[in-house]
């Protein structure tokens, strides 16, 4: 069951096509990574989900029915370009933004109390936003985003501007949110955090979806038969043991332990590779290297860029 679905969405700005026949489906309870290089159309898609802009063509569904204006109360959005009124007091502002999202005054006050205590920032209530550091402002911003307890949360580059400690708190909160049943759409260039948090991804490039699916499947699809071998002994013997079907991509040494990255050129099993080298060196560890999201990202994007230029 998906919480949000977009079908064949198209959006043009004058002659520029920002989204070309884009369809996405966000499963309920997932952390959904929306990836793509700058200018791919991610922000446009996110703005369409938030009903900031309307698509030229295509259909949008929220929780199985067509998306409607009141659904903004069921979506929490932390934009990449985010900020607060600098001259306004923290508490007053949080209350204002919550009420604009349709939370009643009493509920908003109750929830704000809870979150301010949880983040230990009660003393900020009467401070002006401009008196807070950037990291502090981000915390307030985060609280404001989730205060109306929406079933769908959208974070656009949420970690920019956070120090590692606060980024960790934020990560934890995102995972907590998912535990509680919220769905998170997560747009970022930080592939490390994608691997860590997401279980679904959609990759957009040049206004089109070029890759989508569960993250483990994606990584399996793009594995490129590379193995990492740690061993002690003579690296020359290893080289001799491997025939032309194998290439050693790199060989490094650290305190007597060698690490080799081996690429298999033909379809061979791990066992076959191991049997070839088992007598040449002393094996400490051996594992297949799954491609990181970073590599997949670069590979897929470059492939589509080439096919476009051709």
């Amino acid at each position, binding site marked *: 069951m998906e919480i949000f679905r977009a079908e064949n969405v198209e959006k043009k700005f004058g002659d520029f096509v920002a989204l070309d026949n884009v369809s996405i489906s966000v499963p309920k309870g997932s952390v959904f990574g929306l990836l793509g290089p700058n200018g791919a159309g991610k922000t446009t898609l996110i703005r369409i989900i938030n009903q900031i802009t309307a698509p030229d063509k295509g259909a949008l569904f929220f929780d199985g029915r067509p998306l409607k204006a009141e659904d903004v109360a069921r979506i929490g959005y932390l934009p990449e370009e*985010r*900020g*607060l009124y600098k001259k*306004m007091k923290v508490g007053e502002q949080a209350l204002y933004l919550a009420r*604009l999202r349709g939370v009643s005054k009493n509920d908003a006050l109750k929830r704000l109390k809870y979150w301010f205590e949880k983040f230990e920032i009660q003393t900020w209530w009467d401070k002006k936003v401009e008196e807070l550091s950037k990291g502090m402002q981000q915390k307030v911003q985060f609280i404001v985003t989730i205060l109306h307890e929406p079933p769908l949360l959208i974070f656009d580059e949420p970690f920019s501007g956070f120090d590692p400690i606060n980024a960790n708190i934020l990560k934890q909160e995102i995972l907590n949110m998912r535990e509680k049943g919220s769905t998170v759409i997560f747009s970022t260039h930080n592939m490390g955090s994608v691997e860590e948090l997401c279980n679904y991804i959609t990759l957009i490039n040049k206004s089109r979806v070029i890759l989508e699916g569960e993250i483990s499947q994606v990584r399996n699809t793009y594995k490129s038969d590379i193995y990492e071998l740690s061993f002690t002994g003579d690296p020359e013997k290893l080289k001799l043991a491997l025939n032309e079907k194998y290439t050693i991509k790199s060989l490094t040494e650290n305190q007597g332990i060698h690490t080799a990255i081996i690429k298999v050129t033909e379809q061979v099993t791990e066992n076959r590779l191991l049997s070839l080298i088992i007598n040449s060196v002393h094996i400490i560890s051996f594992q297949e290297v799954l491609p990181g999201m970073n590599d997949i990202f670069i590979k897929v994007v470059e492939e589509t860029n080439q096919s476009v230029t051709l």
Partner: protein
Amino acid sequence: MSKTSLIIKREYLTRVRKKSFLVMTILGPILFAAMMIVPIWMAQIEDTEEKLIAVVDSSGMFRNVIPDSENLRFEYLENEDIELLKNTFKARGFYGVLYISHIVTYAPNTVIFYSDKQPGISVNMHISNALEKEIEDRKLAAYNIENLDEIMASVKTNISIRNFKITDDGSEKESNAGVSMAVGYASGFLIYLFIFLFGAQVMRGVIEEKTSRIVEVMVSSVKPFQLMMGKIVGIALVGLTQFVLWIILTFTIVTVVQATLFPELSQSPTQQALNPTGLFEDGGQAATGENAAVAQEAISEDMVQIQNVLEAVRDINIGVMIGSFIFYFLGGYLLYGSLFAAIGGAVDNETDTQQFMFPITIPLIIGIFVMINTINSPESPLSFWFSIIPLTSPIVMMVRIPFGVPYWELALSAALLILTFIFTTWLAGKIYRVGILMYGKKVNYAELWKWIRYKN
């Protein structure tokens, strides 16, 4: 509470609670009051220093003719050498020397005042009036006319012109060009001021939202149009609040200051008539003796004028005036406020606003120029057209209304203004909607045109 009213409330409260609002609210009336009171005060304090003037009268006709006033005293010297006196008058404690030649009756230019300072006009006037009167009296007396005083009193006439306007239905209405002018000018100028002051605030508010990057958070909760209108309406209310406070405070200050510093000015016209010396304080003696009649006449002349002014104020259709003031006030502000909002949305910071401010500023300034022209000729084609064209009508029409404007012209001008502000608000909404989410882009008119054509 609806989202738009939440926005209006925030825009209103944050501005009204600002220190600068408080400062402006207090300073404004003090400045206005000062503009009204200071000239009166200056007129009063000017020359409080007592001046002793030596009079050397070689004609021998004017002994004790020039009356002393509050701060002018005249000492008539006999057998003084004027050349010597010119060098020694200061040492002898005189402010100046008045020399009247013996041929003054047929050579009026031979009265000379010597002083080391330039005497004020009031000093010169005081002296020349007294001398003229004396010479006139003497010349008249030379004709040996019987009952001269009675004849003079009955001959003296003062004309003050009353203006009557004949309206279309044939009835006559008394009008007063001066009052119409003042009321029209004040309201036209207030509208101009309001549009500029608070239109610019709308623009700055939008730019602030853009630069603080809150705008995308906002438009994910509310429609950009709601955000824009909330801001425009909120600031309009701030402006109205400020003006109402200004008016109340200005009148309070003026009344209090007048009552404490110049009690004679706050007397009612009747009191002034009963107590003429009050009005002629700087020439207290003018109200005595034979001059009393003249003074009395001046008073009744003043009374007529005051009455005329009051009648003229009554005559300006107060209902139409207030109604149209509020209408043009809001209409003009909404028209320009939305354009200012569009500019704020299109640019990244205030320095980039110049190129877009220009076409907005021009019609406003033209409006002010036409307004000045309109005061002199409220019925000219120039005044007519600029009071119909919506970009200038809020300013120009306000000046014409006190002079009387046919209702069809008012209706046409109002209808066009409404249509235009609906159009500009729609247009501004389109530019605003795209602009607020656009960062770091140098925007020109071609770009704006593209935005207007974007679909939602």
